[in-house]
């Protein structure tokens, strides 16, 4: 059997410095706690992947300004190698030491190339995996504490600190060390310790450590330094031998132990000097795994963890019931509360006379997080192998999981189900965009939170070299909108610990600006920030993807909403919305119109931000999971679903009460809204939500699965299609209009003149339909839509009776056909609506539009 665990996860936690009380920033808002600032900075560290680094997988904030950083962790470290006896002979040991430091330099060089430095390199921070490959850990501290500024103490261990680091700690006027050359110094000290198999200056006090390092400054050359340092070890080691290994070791030390950092080499320079002579290293270096586990052919004996990256394992660890914060805090020494009482407190809340408690000192220890549970639950057997390794191209025998029918929230927290879903989506995303249709199909079931950002980008048809496009957008030149963005961003979704960090604010501003610059005809409307925040949250480390997803989203669902003058677009949208409401809930709609509670008063923030301004993030995620599958008319259905959920309250409320209800939207059951909106969507004829201002062509083509998935707004138009009517006239309409082509398709009518009937009477699953012809019986007998019911308008005819008769057949759509010129249908429809008849719509253009097509027949009687 393959050795099971190659890595495990560990968590380091530390406490950031507390901020003074009762102060606020320049914008008048409270200061951001250091832990939040740190949390925002830390996110970027997740993107660092290198064979000589322990990659970071997650960061969290705890109480009392505590930060938890989860990363890969290995039990063995260089510290152990120095302090524990070895069987290697002197020569082999030198070779081994060289290898280790070479790996360390590789890691440092990678960090440097990405703009990071470690500044706390020491033997305990150089971990060794099972192959003996050195892996740096703790390298993120410098970045996530903003160079140590967010900590109350200095970063790193004195002994390994370079002279310039120590100087900047001692004298505040000396700037902080910011070069990876400081790391080279530390690496050299580690190398010396390794060579001597002894810790330098063990059990020497801090004060004299400072002195000793600074004394080295007197030495002008690195040769002298090496000499002095070597004398500090008990055993003397000769570096005068002339074998290759010793030569290379000397190259490292001589270039790395210069007191003047200007004369010291960077990791890259040393690596170049070592050059190709270093082929001796290969024996212990594993193949480049690039932060991933080795791939193996799946069989029942494989460990699925091998195929996952550390972030995925971390996600599963949490699903398996892991409680990282509790586990870490158990291992942190805590002071009893009584001993944490300060001597006195100022009126501003500043504390004095507090004894420093150990948990407030910077002491980054690692807590190993056991993967046993995850591993045992992932054991592969014949039953689950198709779930853990799903096959996409074969028609697999029902891979659906038994949990699939449970409520969404349970599914999202079900370990086995998520293992299956994540495995499936991992493969779908690898095959994107080729597998986009399959992705859409799976997304109809659900989307695992773990990969939501990438899946959404897929659903929105984001593709191409985003990074290149994003980089080329000018996001720095000041524009007039800057002030508006600057005041909106710091108050946008600030309850979220990730979005309230300064890093998030910067990202949000950049993505917003990038969008504005890449859409010069559009402009910033308040509310765009809320929309953007959703994408930034999901793609925190991938601004290009956030920007591209947002652009696609707006193109599809908010086409032209952000024009400088958007009133025509919004007005039309709101009228279509009221009509759709009337179609589905005539009584509610009549009531709201009666009290004057029109959509203009409450629905603008809904639609302008696609509900991102009115719901918290966790609700938006679930809402948009479904929204993204619908066409550009789907948001209207969500609006109807929300109103229907509040129906009872609304029907009993007058104008003021209604508007108060909406100014502070009550708790909405999002799952209910999602279900209801799908229902609303499926019961609306697609032409009923026709809008002149909608996006005309759908960029992302997809298979049309059924009648509903077609977006009427993007279909090719014929003389039977819905046509634009002036807004003022649209407002006069009392209900939806249905287009002739839609009607023909719904009734599966086949005309004699095929060229003019776009209908393909094949698509299944259409709403039941009832057609009322209100023309005189004379006109009716000369030609009517087959199956239609003639109800000539006359004052003495009882509408309630008619409604009763229709209701018995419970049709989903009731089409009223009249004459185009007279428009008696309006009045008639209004009567139907007052009776509470659902599904009422008017044939756009009246009977006349059907005359040339040849679908009209003479009634049989």
């Amino acid at each position: 059997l393959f050795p099971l665990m190659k890595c495990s996860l560990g968590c380091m936690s530390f406490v950031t410095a507390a901020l003074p009380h009762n102060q606020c920033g320049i914008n008048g808002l409270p200061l951001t706690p250091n832990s939040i600032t740190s949390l925002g900075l830390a996110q970027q560290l997740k993107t660092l992947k290198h064979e000589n680094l322990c990659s970071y997988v997650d960061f969290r904030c705890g109480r009392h300004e505590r930060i938890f950083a989860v990363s890969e962790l290995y039990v063995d470290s260089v510290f152990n190698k120095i302090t524990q006896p070895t069987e290697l002979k002197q020569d082999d040991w030198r070779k081994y030491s060289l290898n280790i430091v070479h790996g360390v330099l590789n890691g440092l060089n990678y960090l440097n190339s990405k703009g990071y430095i470690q500044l706390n390199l020491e033997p305990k921070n150089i971990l060794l995996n099972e192959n003996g490959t050195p892996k740096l850990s703790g390298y993120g501290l410098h970045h996530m504490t903003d160079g140590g500024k967010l900590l109350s103490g200095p970063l790193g261990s004195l002994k390994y600190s370079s002279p310039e680091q120590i100087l900047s700690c001692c004298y505040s006027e000396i700037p902080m060390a910011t070069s990876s050359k400081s790391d080279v110094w530390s690496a050299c000290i580690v190398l010396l310790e390794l060579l001597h198999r002894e810790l330098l200056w063990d059990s020497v006090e801090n004060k004299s450590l400072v002195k000793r390092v600074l004394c080295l400054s007197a030495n002008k050359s690195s040769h002298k330094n090496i000499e002095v340092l070597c004398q500090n070890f008990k055993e003397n080691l000769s570096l005068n031998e002339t074998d290759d290994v010793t030569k290379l070791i000397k190259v490292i030390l001589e270039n790395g132990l210069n007191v003047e950092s200007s004369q010291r080499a960077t990791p890259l320079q040393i690596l170049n000097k070592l050059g190709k002579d270093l082929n001796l290293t290969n024996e212990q270096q594993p193949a480049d795994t690039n932060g991933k586990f080795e791939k193996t052919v799946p069989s029942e004996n494989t460990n699925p963890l091998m195929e996952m990256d550390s972030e995925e394992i971390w996600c599963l660890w949490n699903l398996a019931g892991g409680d990282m914060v509790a586990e870490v805090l158990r291992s942190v020494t805590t002071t009893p509360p009584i001993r944490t009482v300060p001597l006195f407190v100022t009126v501003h809340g500043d504390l004095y006379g507090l004894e420093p408690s150990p948990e407030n000192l910077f002491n980054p220890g690692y807590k190993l997080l056991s993967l046993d549970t995850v591993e045992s639950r992932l054991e592969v057997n014949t039953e689950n192998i198709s779930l853990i390794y799903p096959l996409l191209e074969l028609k697999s025998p029902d891979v659906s999981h038994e949990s699939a029918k449970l409520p969404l929230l349970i599914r999202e927290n079900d370990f086995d189900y998520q293992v299956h879903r994540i495995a499936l989506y991992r493969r779908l995303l690898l095959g994107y965009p080729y597998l986009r249709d399959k992705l859409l199909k799976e997304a109809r079931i659900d989307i695992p939170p773990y990969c939501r950002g990438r899946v959404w980008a897929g659903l929105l048809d984001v593709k191409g070299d985003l990074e290149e496009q994003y980089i080329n957008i000018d996001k720095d030149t000041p524009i007039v909108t800057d002030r508006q963005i600057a005041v909106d961003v710091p108050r946008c979704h600030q309850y979220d610990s990730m979005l309230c960090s300064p890093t998030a604010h910067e990202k949000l501003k950049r993505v917003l600006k990038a969008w504005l610059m890449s859409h010069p005809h559009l402009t910033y409307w308040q509310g765009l920030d809320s929309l953007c925040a959703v994408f930034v949250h999901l793609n925190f480390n991938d601004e290009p993807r956030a920007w591209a997803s947002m652009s696609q989203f707006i193109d599809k669902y908010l086409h032209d909403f952000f024009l400088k003058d958007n009133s025509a677009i919004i007005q039309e949208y709101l009228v279509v919305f009221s009509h759709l409401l009337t179609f589905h809930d005539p009584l509610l709609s009549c009531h709201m119109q009666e009290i004057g509670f029109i959509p203009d008063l409450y629905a603008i923030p809904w639609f302008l931000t696609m509900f991102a301004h009115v719901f918290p993030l966790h609700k938006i995620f679930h809402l948009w999971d479904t929204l993204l599958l619908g066409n550009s008319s789907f948001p209207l259905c969500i609006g109807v679903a929300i109103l229907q959920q509040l129906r009872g309250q609304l029907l009993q409320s007058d104008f003021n009460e209604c508007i108060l209800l909406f100014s502070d939207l009550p708790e909405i059951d999002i799952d209910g809204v999602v279900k209801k909106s799908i229902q609303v969507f499926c019961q609306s004829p697609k032409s009923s939500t026709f809008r002149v201002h909608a996006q005309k062509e759908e960029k992302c083509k997809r298979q049309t699965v059924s009648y509903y998935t077609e977006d009427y707004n993007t279909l090719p138009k014929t003389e039977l299609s819905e046509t634009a009517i002036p807004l003022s006239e649209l407002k006069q309409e009392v209900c939806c209009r249905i287009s002739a082509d839609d009607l023909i398709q719904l009734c599966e009518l086949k005309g004699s003149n095929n060229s003019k009937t776009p209908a393909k009477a094949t698509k299944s699953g259409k709403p039941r339909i009832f057609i009322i012809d209100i023309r005189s019986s004379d006109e009716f007998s000369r030609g009517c839509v087959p199956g239609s019911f003639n109800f000539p308008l006359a004052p003495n005819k009882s509408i309630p009776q008619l409604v009763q008769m229709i209701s018995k057949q419970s049709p989903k759509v009731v089409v009223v056909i009249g004459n185009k010129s007279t428009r008696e249908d309006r009045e008639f429809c209004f009567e139907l609506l007052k009776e509470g008849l659902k599904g009422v719509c008017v044939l756009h253009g009246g009977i006349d539009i059907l005359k040339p097509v040849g679908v009209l027949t003479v009634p049989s009687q």
Partner: protein
Amino acid sequence: MATRTGAPRPANSGTQGKICQFKLVLLGESAVGKSSLVLRFVKGQFHEYQESTIGAAFLTQTVCLQDTTVKFEIWDTAGQERYHSLAPMYYRGAQAAIVVYDITNQDTFARAKTWVKELQRQASPNIVIALAGNKADLSNKRMVEHDDAVSYAEENGLLFMETSAKTAMHVNDIFLAIAEKLPKNEAGASANRQSAGVGLTATDNREGSGKSCCGSN
């Protein structure tokens, strides 16, 4: 933080005397604290990170004077210049307006002045306008002098107070001062009923709608 406001006395349903209903609109540059002022006045709450207002928000609050109960219908508007075109819809028919600026930002004061001009030109002639210099708790960052604002308010016949939605300073006072100044005769109240712009068919003259529109609890 929501408690010690001494919010206006709620209107007891049994109060004798007349009930007047007035439409009040808040105007001003974005992020000066319009929504925060309303929230403090109506619910006694304060949120540091009050989200931006899109379009407009509506709230009501009732205050009691000696013998009259005044019910404010408060329209809180979006601050962004782009939403300007919607503003007339909200201030049309309003009997009172509070124009808000931020004392730590000179530009917002200039913006407030243009709002005042627009109201004087286009709103109903008898409109009571109050000027509120908000964020008074940040007086160490003050950019608009108190005296400048006072003299500007005097010149234009505006009520003026420096307020702080955060500390609740003068928040109730400014609304009460407006309530005092509004005409409480029959004409005033009836003018209101006609004025229901925005499709506001404010049908109710019933008192205290039983909702949480009064006081902080």
